[in-house]
């Protein structure tokens, strides 16, 4: 069940009605949200619900056991077992086929006849996200950063809450579990939520979907058939597409949670306006980058053991972040580029200086970072490493051929997507404040008409979100 569909709207209508009927019975509301979340997840494959429930039970029990144990060694063993179980589950579903394929290739190279049976394992949607939720909860309980969750219903809801279940944002236990202790007394920010939904729909249905079908998919499918200008515009197109696709999902998740009375953290903050690569990572998929910082980079030693180890930790963290997206050399390359980029940026920091840049310097810095990120996206998006390499080589050729695939409409979509990176946050706040004065039925009518218009502008059908596959 995808957010921008009529099926989801009807589903949400039932959930919203249940929230009204249940009034102040907070425990019952949470139970309804758990049932709704499992129903939402079962729409992909009901068997995945057992994985989600299993992951929640492991997290809950590990949290209780860690909380009950006074001995540090026991706590560490429980943490190790629980994290291994979570990672094992993720590893089996995400990397098992890759390892079988690699082992068979190696066996063939060595002249061995026996091959391991290949089982095509279906990747459960959102498995990475609920695994990350589980690991962060257990680790935070171990570190004493979050109280042990004693209510199993709260743990089930934390792990399965449908707005963030399949593509994030990754909401930390310390942020979300306190919201489950007592009902929120804050008013529901209806106008801001509707603006996020409308903006998210426009980004996904119009910008991301048209860029995918009209430019990015055909050019990346056969890069040798196109000249440099098309390849360059398709690279910009993919940068805008993946941002609009992924941030749209986050925006809608944040808005849906808000409409149900819950707060979510920000996940994107105009990443392509970054003037440094590290700033890009503070603005892109914030919930994952901070997760990796706290549960991987820092435990590796962070920046505490000298320059060389800091560079190593950066590279390792980014490599693992790359491999998290999938088993393949293209993701390794993507991670290595970002890890290497961050390390080099840190290395030349004394030379760059910490003084603020001139306006021209800021533009140049933004352009450099944007083009570096775009270059790395080529490896991320291409079918495999070999195609990515052909693509990179093609960028330098065929500049006299003009544009075959990238028409003015595609260029306009890229321009609109990029313009969104530089609009002021104050504009969103002003519009949301103005709409907050409109009565709810008026907001509903406006939202319905806007959604109908966006739907008419978009292509037939709804393409799945890119990050569902991770």
């Amino acid at each position, binding site marked *: 069940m995808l957010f921008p*569909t009529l099926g989801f*709207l009807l589903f949400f209508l039932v959930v*919203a*009605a249940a*929230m*009204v009927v249940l009034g102040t019975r907070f425990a019952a509301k949470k139970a309804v949200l758990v049932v709704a979340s499992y129903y939402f997840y079962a729409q992909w494959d009901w068997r995945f619900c057992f994985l989600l429930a299993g992951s929640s039970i492991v997290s809950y029990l590990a949290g209780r056991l860690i909380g009950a144990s006074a001995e540090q060694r026991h706590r560490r063993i429980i943490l190790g077992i629980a994290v291994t179980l979570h990672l094992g589950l993720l590893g089996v579903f995400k990397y098992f086929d890759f390892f079988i394929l690699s082992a068979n290739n190696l066996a063939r190279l060595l002249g061995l006849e026996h091959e391991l049976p290949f089982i095509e394992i279906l990747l459960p949607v959102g498995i990475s996200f609920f695994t990350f939720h589980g690991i962060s909860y257990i680790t935070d309980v171990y*570190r004493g*950063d979050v109280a042990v969750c004693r209510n199993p219903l709260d743990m089930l809801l934390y792990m399965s809450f449908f707005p963030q279940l399949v593509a994030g944002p990754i909401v930390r236990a*310390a*942020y979300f579990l306190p919201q489950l202790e007592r009902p929120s007394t804050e*008013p*529901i*920010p*209806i*106008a*801001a*939520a*509707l603006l*996020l939904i409308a903006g998210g729909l426009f980004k996904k249905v119009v910008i991301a979907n*048209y860029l995918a079908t*009209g430019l990015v998919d055909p050019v990346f499918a056969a890069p040798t058939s196109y000249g440099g200008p098309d390849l360059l515009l398709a690279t910009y197109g993919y940068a805008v597409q993946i941002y609009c696709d992924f941030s749209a999902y986050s925006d809608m998740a944040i808005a849906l949670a808000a*409409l*149900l009375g819950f*707060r*979510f*953290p920000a*996940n994107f903050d105009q990443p392509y306006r970054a003037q440094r690569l*590290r700033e890009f*990572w503070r603005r892109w*998929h914030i*919930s*994952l*980058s901070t997760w*990796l*910082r706290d549960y991987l980079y*820092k435990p590796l030693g*962070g920046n*505490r053991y000298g320059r060389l180890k800091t560079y190593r930790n950066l590279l390792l*963290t*980014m490599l693992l972040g790359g491999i998290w997206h999938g088993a393949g050399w293209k993701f390794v390359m993507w991670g290595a580029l970002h890890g290497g980029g*961050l390390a080099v940026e840190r290395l030349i920091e004394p030379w760059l200086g910490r003084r603020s840049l001139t306006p021209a310097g800021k533009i140049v810095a933004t352009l450099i970072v944007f083009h570096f990120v775009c270059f790395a996206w080529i490896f991320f998006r291409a079918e495999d490493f070999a195609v990515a390499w052909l693509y990179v080589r093609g960028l330098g050729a065929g500049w006299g051929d*003009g*544009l075959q695939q990238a*028409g003015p*409409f595609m260029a*306009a979509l890229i321009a609109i997507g990029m313009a969104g990176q530089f609009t002021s946050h104050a504009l969103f*706040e002003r519009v949301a*404040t103005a709409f*907050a004065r409109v009565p709810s*039925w008026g*907001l*509903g009518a406006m*939202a*319905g*008409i806007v959604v*109908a218009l966006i739907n*008419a*502008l978009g292509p*037939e*059908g709804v393409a799945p979100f890119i990050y569902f596959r991770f």
Partner: protein
Amino acid sequence: MVAVERELPETPGPAAAPTADAIPLKLRRRGGTPRQVLALTLVGTLALALFASRDLPSWTDRLGDGPVAERVEALAHDWDRAMAALGLVKPHEALRSAIRRLLDWQWKSAP
């Protein structure tokens, strides 16, 4: 991927959960109730039913087989025809045709 520079130098420190709410506090001060959320969802669904009826049949086509699904499909087609008779599908069709023209738009020098 790592927001490294937020890390405090030389301090292992506890994991700092990201606490910046996506919707700023000042926008959360003015708002509504669950009842208003339900009302606006109902009104929004009605507005969609009125102005996006062209997409209803394709959605109901995906509901699968069976007598109930067939009945729903037939209702969706009837509803769309009724909305067309009222002229409510015109904005939808105008936008679809405008977007088709935009997709066909080519650079002047293109073959």
